[in-house]
């Protein structure tokens, strides 16, 4: 990785970001959107870590005989970001499960259609399958 033209890492990161973005905006299934979002997140992590690398550096742990270390600050930021990412993905998955129970489907088109049908009805709210409180 280190002996390639210097900007290749960033372009690949942009490609991965756009792949994740494409999944989020164009695919209909909610779970797949969450997977695309996590692909997007991971590509941002690659971007940050690439910026922190020093050529010829060593991992930022104090070792005998090493003078050049890679920058520890992006590592700290990304460590935080990874764990926060999994926490938000878990919340997203819980939301998808509840949406499935309320609407009966996790496809975006079905949910949109059910919402539109509910809006045009003159009578009461559209929640049909309210799951029992735990």
């Amino acid at each position: 990785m280190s002996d390639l033209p210097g900007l290749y890492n960033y372009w690949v990161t942009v490609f991965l970001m756009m792949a994740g973005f494409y999944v989020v905006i164009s695919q209909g299934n909610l779970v797949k959107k969450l997977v695309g979002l996590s692909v997007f997140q991971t590509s941002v992590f690659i971007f940050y870590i690439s910026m922190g690398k020093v050529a010829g550096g060593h991992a930022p742990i104090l070792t005998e005989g090493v003078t050049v270390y890679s920058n520890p600050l992006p590592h700290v930021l990304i460590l935080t970001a990874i764990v926060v990412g999994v926490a938000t993905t878990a919340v997203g998955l819980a939301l998808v499960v509840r949406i499935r129970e309320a609407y009966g489907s996790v496809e975006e088109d079905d949910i949109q259609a059910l919402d539109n049908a509910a809006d045009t009805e003159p009578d009461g709210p559209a929640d049909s399958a309210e799951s029992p409180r735990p």
Partner: protein
Amino acid sequence: MLLAFLMSIALAVIRVRDLFVVVMLSSVYSFMTATLFMDLDAVDVAFTEAAVGAGVTGVLMLSTLRLTGRWERRPSHGPLLPLIVVSITGAALIYGTLDAPLLGDPMAPVQQHVAPRYIEQGPVEVGMPNMVTAVLASYRGFDTFGETFVIFTAGIAVLLLLGIQEGPQTKPGRTAIGDQLVLRVVVKMVIPLILLYGLYVQFHGDFGAGGGFQAGVIFATAFVLYDLVFGEGDARLVAPPSWLHRLGALGVLIYGGVGLYSLFVGKPFLDYSALSHDPVHGQHFGVLLVELGVGITVFSIVLAIFYALSGRNKAT
């Protein structure tokens, strides 16, 4: 190379419609990213990405797929407009990267100002070889406190949305696929090793790669493995959900307690030199307590989220 593999996996995630395959591909993607991080000298980050991205996220997504369905419907609208949006955004971003410093440039702006101070003063002021842990727990301790709180809040959110349900599948002694002799024996041998390794990572985070987050996730993985093989009833006897709620709060309280103790002694919030007569000793002690708090919270919240998702009764 690794980056080419990552690009092909991303393309496959877009094209494949079997969501089980998509989840597996995303775990492989996380693993390759972890290898890439190792190549870019980020050992702590690679560790966390492998444990969290490849392990925990995969299990949680599979538990969700059980409830929502495996196949994706063919998209109803064409790909032209999203492709145009994506191409314009990508072109703008690539134009933005043309000014970026080359990979590995030691004269880049990000390597100046703060980073040399952390690299040189970190082992001296905080007294531990692992600079990432020194920065995470001591120099940027406030951020880590916020992050622990975010994990705790996410756990609360999942518990509010789903709750940990009792049902027919959570009776002790029942497993999902019947008698499994080989799995039981091997898992009984492997789980103590996993727990031991989690403890090693927790307390060795000062000297090598490791720390609270990775250790919490590894600990939770051992319990998830037990749950998968021995059934949910037995797993809930071993790690009761009510205890998980308390442990999640306990970890955050430990972290905040260290900070408040510093306030009571008269120093600023989360100033570890208040914990002992010798500042470096105080830093060691403070980092140990803080990482313990983080590890406990991460372990209990990950396990609680897994219980919530996997124990959910299937809607008809």
